[in-house]
């Protein structure tokens, strides 16, 4: 009898959560898309519009490639895998000469105050133009970040020819 009551409560609660998720998820997705658009505009402010490129043979982690209409750079949306909290999504910008302008995190599940120190450290190194190896105590996140950057570099080599 106790097992039955507990199971029923669990079932009802999961049902209620599934129902709520059904209604809130589209809102969350839409807001995330808006933030991504704003992040692209922030990455390359000179761009006058972003065109989604359809390219085959990219690394699996590179989800979207955006070319700029006026040729001021390319933007890669990358899902970094193997972080401490699973996946996190990055935006990585390339200048017209093929150098990385910068990278930013859009959404992450890394441990607050530990793994997410990597993101601030990367931004700081980018701003100063310094070399960045990783953050002690956040090795897993650092490595996941580096793999994402490597994937973006590989993707850039693939799409380079298609850019006008």
């Amino acid at each position, binding site marked *: *009898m*106790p*097992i039955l*009551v*507990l199971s029923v*409560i*669990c079932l009802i*609660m*999961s049902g*209620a*959560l599934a129902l*709520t*998720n059904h209604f*809130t*998820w589209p*809102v*969350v997705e839409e*807001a995330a898309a808006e933030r991504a658009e704003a992040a692209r505009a922030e990455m390359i402010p000179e761009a006058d519009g972003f065109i989604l490129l359809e390219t085959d043979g990219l690394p699996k982690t590179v989800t979207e490639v955006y070319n700029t209409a006026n040729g001021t750079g390319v933007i890669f949306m990358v899902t970094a895998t193997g972080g401490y909290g699973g996946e996190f999504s990055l935006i990585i910008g390339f200048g017209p000469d093929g150098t990385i302008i910068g990278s930013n995190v859009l959404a992450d599940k890394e*441990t*607050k105050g530990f793994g997410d120190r990597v993101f601030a450290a990367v931004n700081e190194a980018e701003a100063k133009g310094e070399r960045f190896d990783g953050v002690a105590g956040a090795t897993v996140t650092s490595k996941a970040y580096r793999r994402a950057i490597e994937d973006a570099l590989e993707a850039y080599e693939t799409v380079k020819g298609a850019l006008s």
Partner: protein
Amino acid sequence: MSRLNILTKGFIKENPVLIFLLGMCPALAVSTQVSNALGMGAATTFVLLGSNTVIALLRNVIPNKVRIPCYIVLIAGFVTLVQMFTEAYVYTLYQALGIFLPLIVVNCIVLSRAEIFAQKNTVFNSILDAISTGGGFTIALLAIASIREILGSGTWFGLEIPVLAAENIPIFVMAPGGFAAFGIIVAIINKVSKGKALKKKEFGCEGCPSAQTCVKGGVE
């Protein structure tokens, strides 16, 4: 206990944070800014309302043996609901609360109200109790956050305070400042009430909900 008494006792007289000293983890962690404190207070109050109502409704259905797992499932469910709603509609708050939003599940205030009050009182009284406890939690958070934000950042609710903004004391925004602000408020309450606030009989072994099964509580 009259209904008015149930509704108001949690605000000051039996404040969950300042008198019972429960839920200190979120109280210290999220009280760096008044706006975050208000958001955390609102989220916890909502969870309390939900869990108290449902647990009071089901108080004759839930078997005693599995009551704690049942409460935890219900509380975790309501917390996840709050999390989904804040992520969808109040994203800035969702980011500011971070890990402390899902951690409301293990907030001892919520479980203690289920165990002490909701499981043996009517639905209406449990709702009053939830408002009272949630309100008290919010009041305590606002009090701590006001001290920390005014002294630490020189702002209140994001508004700059003329002199203090230039001469702020950053340690108040950090963890030690949280303990200091919390300690100062508890000390003031003790001084004003001449130590009575923390030494009531019902907070001793006799008033404990587990007194009947506990060896120390004594069921001779």
